[in-house]
């Protein structure tokens, strides 16, 4: 699996599935010889790849292949579970996220996360959006107001809710709640956005709106999205990584993956032939 030319500015490990050819942006996130264990059970096996900034990368693969596990490592969310450990490294802008000098709070602040089931707090729409600022200790009204409007506008929710910002967020529709959660995820102005099956509970219109949003947001954020919809991966992502049994099988331009993948496992999975 050697892409024809590697334009990455850095040398990549020799065992790497590396950066797809033609990706010229500097490596932003890099996963190096990464293994992950839940207790004794190894879930990720020697993962190597590099993600450029301001691109959308999708993670696809069968259930249990380790997509969410890897995603939760980028903001070190997995550490909240007992008995987990990892080997290898993940770097953001060349700096290990596991470095002792890294403040985990600061790391999580630069990474927004959106989950499969939207999980707004049972508070007002307004309070949901400003939550990341509140935990950062910001209480300046003007700044909060400005953040609410900016974030809700970026997720195209402003016009729908601007007259009822004080209402309980749980009164929104599923699609609106999901956009609200994205607004909350970006309110603290992170530079990475992780999304784990963000559209799985949404209808086609709400899904289309989220997808349009993802394409819009990649101007500012580096986005990683886990999705079970092959169409969604092919519509919104620039790069696609296919995982199977905890291994990264193939990582390439989305277009390449969906027209002529190199690995038979990838081909069988995306065409629906997996036995």
């Amino acid at each position: 699996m050697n892409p024809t030319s590697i334009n990455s500015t850095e040398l990549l490990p020799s065992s790497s599935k590396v950066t797809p050819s033609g990706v010229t942006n500097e490596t932003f996130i890099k996963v190096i010889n990464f293994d992950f264990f839940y207790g004794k059970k190894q879930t990720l096996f020697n993962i190597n790849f590099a993600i450029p900034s301001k691109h959308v990368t999708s993670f696809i693969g069968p259930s249990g292949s380790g997509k969410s596990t890897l995603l939760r490592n980028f903001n070190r969310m997995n550490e909240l579970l007992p008995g987990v450990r990892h080997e290898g490294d993940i770097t953001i802008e060349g700096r290990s996220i596991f470095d002792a000098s890294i403040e985990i709070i600061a790391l999580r602040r630069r990474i927004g996360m959106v989950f499969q089931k939207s999980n707004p707090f049972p508070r007002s729409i307004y309070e949901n959006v400003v939550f990341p600022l509140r935990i950062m200790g910001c209480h300046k009204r003007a700044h909060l107001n400005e953040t609410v409007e900016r974030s809700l506008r970026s997720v195209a929710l402003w016009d729908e809710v601007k007259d009822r910002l004080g209402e309980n967020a749980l009164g929104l529709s599923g699609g609106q709640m999901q956009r609200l959660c994205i607004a909350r995820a970006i309110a603290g102005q992170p530079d990475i956005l992780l999304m784990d099956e963000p559209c799985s509970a949404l209808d086609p219109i709400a899904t289309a709106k989220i997808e349009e949003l993802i394409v819009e947001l990649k101007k500012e954020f580096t986005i990683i999205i886990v999705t079970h919809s092959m169409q969604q991966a092919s519509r919104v992502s620039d790069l696609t990584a296919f995982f199977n049994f905890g291994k990264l099988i193939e990582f390439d331009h989305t277009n390449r993956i969906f027209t002529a993948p190199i690995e038979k496992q990838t081909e069988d999975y995306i065409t629906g032939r997996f036995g």
Partner: protein
Amino acid sequence: MAYSRSHILTPFTEKLDQIHSSIMTIGELARANFKNAICGLFERNDDYCNNAIANDEEIDLLEMQIDREGLYIMSRFQPVASDLRYVISSMKIGANIERIGDQVVSIARRSRKINEHPEVPELHELDKVIKLAMKMFDDALRAYTEENETLALHIKTQDKQLDRLNKELNERLILRMQDDSSKIPIYFNLIFISRCLERIGDHAANIAEDVVFAVSAEDIRHLGS
């Protein structure tokens, strides 16, 4: 990568099988028509020619059916990777076979014209051109069924040979015209038929390119010589 149409989703497999079988049908029909037109010419029998002309309507209908089947698969199953390439190639191959059908109709029409005149020995000047064009078309259909990339690539090389045979035949018949102007209409029709055969070779080469694309994702069109 050997292509298996077997999907977890049965209706998807069925539709892929269906478009495959439609290509086989249109291919067989065009092949039979081709043979009929040539028989009509060599056996000086207009019935064969007329048969080839009449059957072309079936070919047109089949081409449209193949497009409908392809469209159905695209809209219902959103094929990707080898399936996507297979469907696109099948639709293009259907169109190329239909164009071969049109060339066969022209051959049949010209043959009827030639049959109005007494037989000329120059008829057999066509032998090599016919043989090669038929072989290329047969090979193209076989390459499709067998997903045989090597055979498909070989067809491309034969295309140049066919062009040369056609050109040589043109030159010979044009010289002959100057010797015996009474046979100009016959020679003219023979030249025309040879040109149709050369076009059939071009379509066979297109089919070969589509087979290569379906099998290996390589676009070998316009690679030069």
